[in-house]
């Protein structure tokens, strides 16, 4: 028995070397001359076996299979991860508690819960419940925009904390929110006439959209003195609305938008950098509303948050514009940062592209065909 075991081990060692091409039959026999007679016929048979199974899939099949696998991946977006820490019933229970007991606003207040946290699934579920129970499609748009903001903030947090494994998933969610916005039956603003130009072939630029000539109402007013760039921003692509200087700011090519006749808005805040202008990015970094909200951030929240004037499609458009710019800037800053590992950047680039293309799809939903 002992001898058999020893021989099995020697045979296996020789086979391993033969299969992996490290050694020939002769070399193996030389190493074990005492077993040569017994080993040789077995090793010759093994060589024959190895040769017989050396078949490769045809190039055609290989290409076809790879393509179908890619399709499968694209369809399902991401493998379903089984969460073992928090069972589904617990997620449902927590979600119900969050939404129906504490109130819907509490859910978004749980923004501190980040991917990787067992409660993150609860957070996502709660967001979905909020969307499901939204009173109107316009409210849904606002919720989706807020959720997109959350995902971008999570990406920033993940990149900063080197917890990058969920960045791709966040990017995919971001993409899906904008795609969904693009499918919601929103009332079209017939006064806004945008011609969308897909800039998708310029991978590092936003989808460009240009506006049509003014028709019956007043043209937009650009007020560069109210615009501000981020403090210390060295990124030529950065567009933000927080503190600092305007010295490098260049006013964007003036998009001429026909505003609704009843609009008495003061148009504020259109800033792009020189590089963007050079790229002929006619990006409408615009929101219009009251002067008070010009530099304070999200126009919707400045006006009382998601509950204010949700029925106004222009207001929704502004919210979308503002958030999209803010989100793409945050992702771009991550991409430009030396502190973010290179391994994460492909996912971030996809997130950036998803945000831009998704935004383009979403924005087209506001525009009359």
């Amino acid at each position: 028995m002992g001898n058999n075991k020893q021989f099995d081990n020697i045979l296996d060692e020789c086979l391993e070397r033969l299969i992996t091409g490290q050694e020939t039959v002769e070399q193996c026999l030389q190493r074990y001359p005492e077993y040569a007679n017994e080993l040789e016929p077995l090793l010759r048979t093994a060589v024959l076996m190895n040769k017989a199974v050396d078949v490769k899939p045809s190039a055609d099949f290989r290409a076809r299979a790879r393509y179908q696998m890619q399709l499968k991946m694209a369809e399902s977006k991401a493998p379903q991860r089984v969460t073992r820490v928090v069972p589904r019933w617990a997620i449902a229970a927590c979600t119900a508690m969050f939404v129906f007991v504490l109130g819907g606003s509490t859910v978004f207040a749980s923004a501190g819960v980040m991917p990787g946290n067992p409660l993150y699934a609860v957070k996502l579920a709660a967001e979905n419940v909020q969307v499901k129970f939204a009173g109107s499609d316009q409210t849904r748009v606002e919720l989706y925009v807020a959720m997109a903001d959350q995902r971008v903030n999570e990406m920033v947090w993940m990149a900063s904390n080197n917890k990058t494994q969920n960045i791709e998933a966040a990017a995919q969610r971001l993409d899906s929110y904008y795609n969904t916005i693009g499918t919601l039956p929103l009332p079209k603003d017939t006064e806004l006439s945008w011609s969308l130009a897909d800039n998708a072939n310029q991978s590092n630029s936003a989808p460009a959209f240009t506006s049509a000539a003014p028709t019956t109402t007043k043209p937009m007013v650009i007020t560069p003195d109210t615009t501000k760039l981020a403090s210390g921003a060295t990124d030529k692509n950065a567009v933000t609305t927080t503190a600092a200087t305007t010295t490098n700011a260049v006013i964007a090519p003036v998009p001429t938008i026909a505003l609704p006749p009843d609009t008495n808005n003061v148009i504020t805040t259109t800033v792009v950098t020189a590089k963007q202008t050079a790229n002929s990015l006619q990006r409408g970094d615009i929101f219009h509303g009251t002067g008070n909200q010009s530099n304070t951030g999200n126009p919707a929240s400045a006006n009382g948050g998601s509950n204010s004037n949700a029925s106004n499609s222009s207001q929704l458009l502004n919210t979308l514009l503002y958030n999209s710019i803010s989100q793409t800037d945050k992702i771009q800053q991550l991409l430009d940062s030396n502190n973010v590992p290179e391994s994460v950047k492909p996912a971030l680039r996809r997130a950036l592209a998803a945000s831009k293309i998704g935004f383009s799809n979403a924005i087209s939903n506001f525009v009359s065909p």
Partner: protein
Amino acid sequence: MQEELNLVQRARQGDHEAFAQLYETHFDKIFRYLVLKIRNQAEAEDLTQQVFVKAYESIGSFQMQGVPFTAWLYRIAHNQMVDYIRKESKKPTVPLDESLPIRDDSDLEGEIETKIEMEKVVLATKQLTKAQREVISLRFAGGLTITEAAKTMRKSEGAIKALQHSAILALRKTLLAGEQGGK
């Protein structure tokens, strides 16, 4: 090994690139394993695709602390093959000489020679026990190590080595008998 673990971990988290790398690493081997098992190239191609789709759909539930990824993948392949054989058992069998693949090169003489060799060997494997055949498929077609084969078959490494030994011995005898019978 550590690299594969990292890939598996990333694939579990939804990283498509990681899964694609695992796919490329194992695709040919899974195909060879299935060809040897079912001896039909077209069906082996379909099954190979199904194995990876199944793996992709299930990788979220793969347990890092459980069996190695390779063993897990070959169990999927084995189960797909068993399902296929179960479904096909009532259909007429394909003649062996029409079902075996030809190597992917242009040497016709070599192709025929190889095909004949393979036919002999594959015919010989039919004489093996199920366990012996599985060991041979995993080791030679799949290129699994003894440890991986043991994990896949839920047997000890010693048992796999013994099966490997007895399988090759039986193959040798069958091939010799075939040669002597052909003279």
